[in-house]
């Protein structure tokens, strides 16, 4: 039980104890939470694609683009532009080739988070994003990076084992044993760009992880969706308002 939940339970108990001697009315309320971004200037949104790395089993660029578009379609008032994901890696490679006088150098594979740092210049390329904005009638552009990795690890846990002593009586032995586990880590960073100016207006980064025992055989794609499920509400609340339902006590 979390500390806030425990606090609320204690309060509810205290309220129940004093209910008999007070005039109160329990009333349902819906608290609207304003979106973090004022997107009233935009009618359309382009989820452009992501620079993604980590596990090769999951194309985090394609999956994230598809997922965000479907969420925006159903839960926001913005019109979602259906377009192919932008070839962001090719854009970076071409920019580098230009900078090297035409000699193209292959981009290193993205295995860990620090490999993503070299792509920050792309997101700061105002000219490129302004051009994309003009092409799609100046929408709000959503892009960024997604790192989805996995790692095997072990940790020690206490286990109780029932044994019998020399007189045949049962006893519990507590032993410390090592347990293998598999961890999936999702680190998406969403960057919001104004399609009219090409400038970044907001960015949001998340870290979510999940442990599985090795015998669970959880596919990477399932874990990806499980972790994205935790991120999506906060992503959506950046662009559209939410209502939180609850009850309060009006007093007389």
């Amino acid at each position, binding site marked *: 039980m979390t500390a806030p939940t425990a606090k609320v339970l204690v*309060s509810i108990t205290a309220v129940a104890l004093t209910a008999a001697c007070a005039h109160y009315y329990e009333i349902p309320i819906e608290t609207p939470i304003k979106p973090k971004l004022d997107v009233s200037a935009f009618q359309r949104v382009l989820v452009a694609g992501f620079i993604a790395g980590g596990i090769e089993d999951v194309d985090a660029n394609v999956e994230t683009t598809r997922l965000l578009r479907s969420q925006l379609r159903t839960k926001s008032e913005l019109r979602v532009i259906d377009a192919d994901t932008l070839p962001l890696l090719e854009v970076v490679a071409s920019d580098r080739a230009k900078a090297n006088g035409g000699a193209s150098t292959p981009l290193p594979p993205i295995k860990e988070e620090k490999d993503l740092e070299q792509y920050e210049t792309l997101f700061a390329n105002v000219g490129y994003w302004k051009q994309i904005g003009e092409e799609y009638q100046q929408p709000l552009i959503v892009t960024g990076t997604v790192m989805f990795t996995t790692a095997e690890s072990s940790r020690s846990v206490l286990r109780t084992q029932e044994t019998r002593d020399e007189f045949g009586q049962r006893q519990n032995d507590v032993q410390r044993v090592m347990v293998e586990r598999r961890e999936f880590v999702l680190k998406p960073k969403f960057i919001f760009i104004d399609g009219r100016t090409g400038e970044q207006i907001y960015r949001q980064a998340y870290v979510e992880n999940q442990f599985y025992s090795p015998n669970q055989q959880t596919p990477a794609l399932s874990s990806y969706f499980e972790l994205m499920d935790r991120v999506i509400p906060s992503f959506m609340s950046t662009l559209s308002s939410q209502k939180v339902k609850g009850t309060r006590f009006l007093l007389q």
Partner: protein
Amino acid sequence: MRAALLLSVLLLSSAVPALAQKSRSEAEKQVKFGINVAQYNLWREAITRFERAADIDPTYAAAYNNLAIAYEHQGDLPNARKAYEKALKLDPDNQYIKQNYELFREINDRANRQGSR
């Protein structure tokens, strides 16, 4: 002269509690009406009534508690916080106000936390 002074002090000291009682009674009427309209989801009118009650009797914790709830429902979280804090200052041991404030803070914290991770 001294008798007259004593008489006026006596009259005043008996009038002050009576006035306070009258203003609380007026404030209670406003709160009662506010609760009724809030139950019909007429929160703007409820806010007007709770504000009036707080103006009539600034020591009436229930008026501030209800005002806070109404602000919360309208999404005005800064004013809801102020009203809850005022209600708790006036009646720090009231379990209903404490619980309302606790629930409000969870939402308020969530709203402030979004996007900052």
